[in-house]
């Protein structure tokens, strides 16, 4: 059970999210358990978007008039907020569309110039396709080889062979938290050893920035990528943290307007980072609203967020255990101290898609499938799993609704 004061806070938090005031088409309460895919947005974020478009919509960086100056200030202020949220300096935060684009930026701008034939790129077996495919393509372009830190059948990373895997390793790119199993990578063990081996370190923070207190300096990451839409902000905006010296040494990724200092017909010089990596008109409104989202999260407190999710995951594990006799099987480490608020499971021989469809009739939103981790699924021998993921607005009653809906699915499928 969660402490009553904690639950009350979660219920108060829920009131900040307009979507929860609307019933589903079947008249059910919306029980949103898919925040690992994308989070809901608080009113303040929605209002920030609205305010920008109503009051000071203008292009940034070049305008001399009042609303352009206001837009530029808000845009750069948002960068400072997002930087502070992860312990970085504003000059080390590059706006991207999302985590995927941030990783691609590294793979092209840094990878093309720093990775050579025969170099090793070390990943783990639980990576999201976004932290796998860009490295496959980089390996194809350069002749580098991919290596993988294995996962065991509980979804825990196996570090026994880490030294051998790190030998000759140019780059380590690793998810901080697995979106499929919730596994939290032991970066405090892995990163120092990768550093000692001379590897450049990329952390996929898509599932950690929203859920854990993150300090990129303490993590000692060279790059850290994350998406606003998973942390109460809008879609279409994300960020890449990069150490200043690295960002300075890298060539541009995309090129064109805004990222230049001076252009002649046959050549150009480039702006300083982070603007060097922001070609064309930026996603101004969403960047500003991302700033509001991190303000909101800062006020809740990342430590509270983590503790709330830990408590709700523990409660969910406890309640789901009662369904074990009916064939419910939860995957992953199953230790709330070692996982984020993500639970992957299957119900007897019922396909995850059917589970999700039946849960949907009760207003319970979960995800079913491979969660963009097809190689992990194949390795584990699962065709698909159902996944429930928790966030700041979830409370015990959401877990209770999940359990009731799963009982309905078990009843329909006679398991």
């Amino acid at each position: 059970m969660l402490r009553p004061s904690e639950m009350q806070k979660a219920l108060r938090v829920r009131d900040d999210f307009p979507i929860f005031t609307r019933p589903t088409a079947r008249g059910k309460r919306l029980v949103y358990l898919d925040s690992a895919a994308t989070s809901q947005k608080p009113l303040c974020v929605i209002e920030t978007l609205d305010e920008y478009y109503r009051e000071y919509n203008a292009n940034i960086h070049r305008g001399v008039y009042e609303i352009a100056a206001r837009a530029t200030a808000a845009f750069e202020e948002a960068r400072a907020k997002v930087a502070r949220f992860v312990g970085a300096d504003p000059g080390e935060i590059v706006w991207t569309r999302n985590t995927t684009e941030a990783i691609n930026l590294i793979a092209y701008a840094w990878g093309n110039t720093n990775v050579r034939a025969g170099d090793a790129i070390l990943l783990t077996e639980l990576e999201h396709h976004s932290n796998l495919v860009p490295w496959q393509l980089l390996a194809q372009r350069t002749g580098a080889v991919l290596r993988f830190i294995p996962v065991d059948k509980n979804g825990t990373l196996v570090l026994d062979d880490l030294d051998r895997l790190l030998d000759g390793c140019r780059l380590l790119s690793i998810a901080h938290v697995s979106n499929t199993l919730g596994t939290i990578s032991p970066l405090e063990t892995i990163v120092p050893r990768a550093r000692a081996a001379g590897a450049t370190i990329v952390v996929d923070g898509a599932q950690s920035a929203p859920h854990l207190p993150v300090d990129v300096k303490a993590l000692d990451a060279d790059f850290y990528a994350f998406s606003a839409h998973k942390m109460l902000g809008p879609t279409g905006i994300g960020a890449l943290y990069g150490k200043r010296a690295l960002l300075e040494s890298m060539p541009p990724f995309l090129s064109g307007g805004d990222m230049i200092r001076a252009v002649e017909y046959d050549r150009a010089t480039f702006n300083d980072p982070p603007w060097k990596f922001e070609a064309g008109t930026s996603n101004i409104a969403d960047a500003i609203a991302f700033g509001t989202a991190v303000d909101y999260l800062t006020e809740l407190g990342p430590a509270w967020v983590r503790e709330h999710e830990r408590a709700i995951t523990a409660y969910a594990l406890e309640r789901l255990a009662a369904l074990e006799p009916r064939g419910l099987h939860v995957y992953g480490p199953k230790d709330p101290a070692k996982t984020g608020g993500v639970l992957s499971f299957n119900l007897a021989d019922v396909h995850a898609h059917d589970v999700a469809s039946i849960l949907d009739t009760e207003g319970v939103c979960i995800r079913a499938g491979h969660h963009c981790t097809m190689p992990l699924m194949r390795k584990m021998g699962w065709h698909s799993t159902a996944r429930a993921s928790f966030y700041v607005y979830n409370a015990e009653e959401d877990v209770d609704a999940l359990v009731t809906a799963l009982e309905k699915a078990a009843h329909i499928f006679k398991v």
Partner: protein
Amino acid sequence: MDDFYRDYILDHYRNPRNFGHLDAPTASAEDLNPLCGDQIRMELQIDDGGIVRAVRFSGNGCAISLASASMLTESISGMPLEDVAKLSKDVVLENVGIGISPTRMKCAMLGLRVLKSAAIGELAGWPDEE
């Protein structure tokens, strides 16, 4: 959607008909639903008169995709290949007999899509994938 899971659907899901492989299929095709990773393979035995003499399917998927594919294999036995190639989605909708939500339509139609591509490929003389 919860009405969908009638007994006969669950029966086809748990005991799919014509499930498995043919020794020497005349035509075959395979596809997956990239959304959920469901995967279905269809193998056909066609006689010299162009009639479907045997069909087997294999793969994995949700109740909707497997039951739809299973029922489809029953519908086409003895059918001229030309007709198989022209099947519309109504055959699936009639088989399942209950409304399928738009989000699951892809699952329901996966077997039909694979079957038709096997039939059309065979009629057009595409090289078999094997």
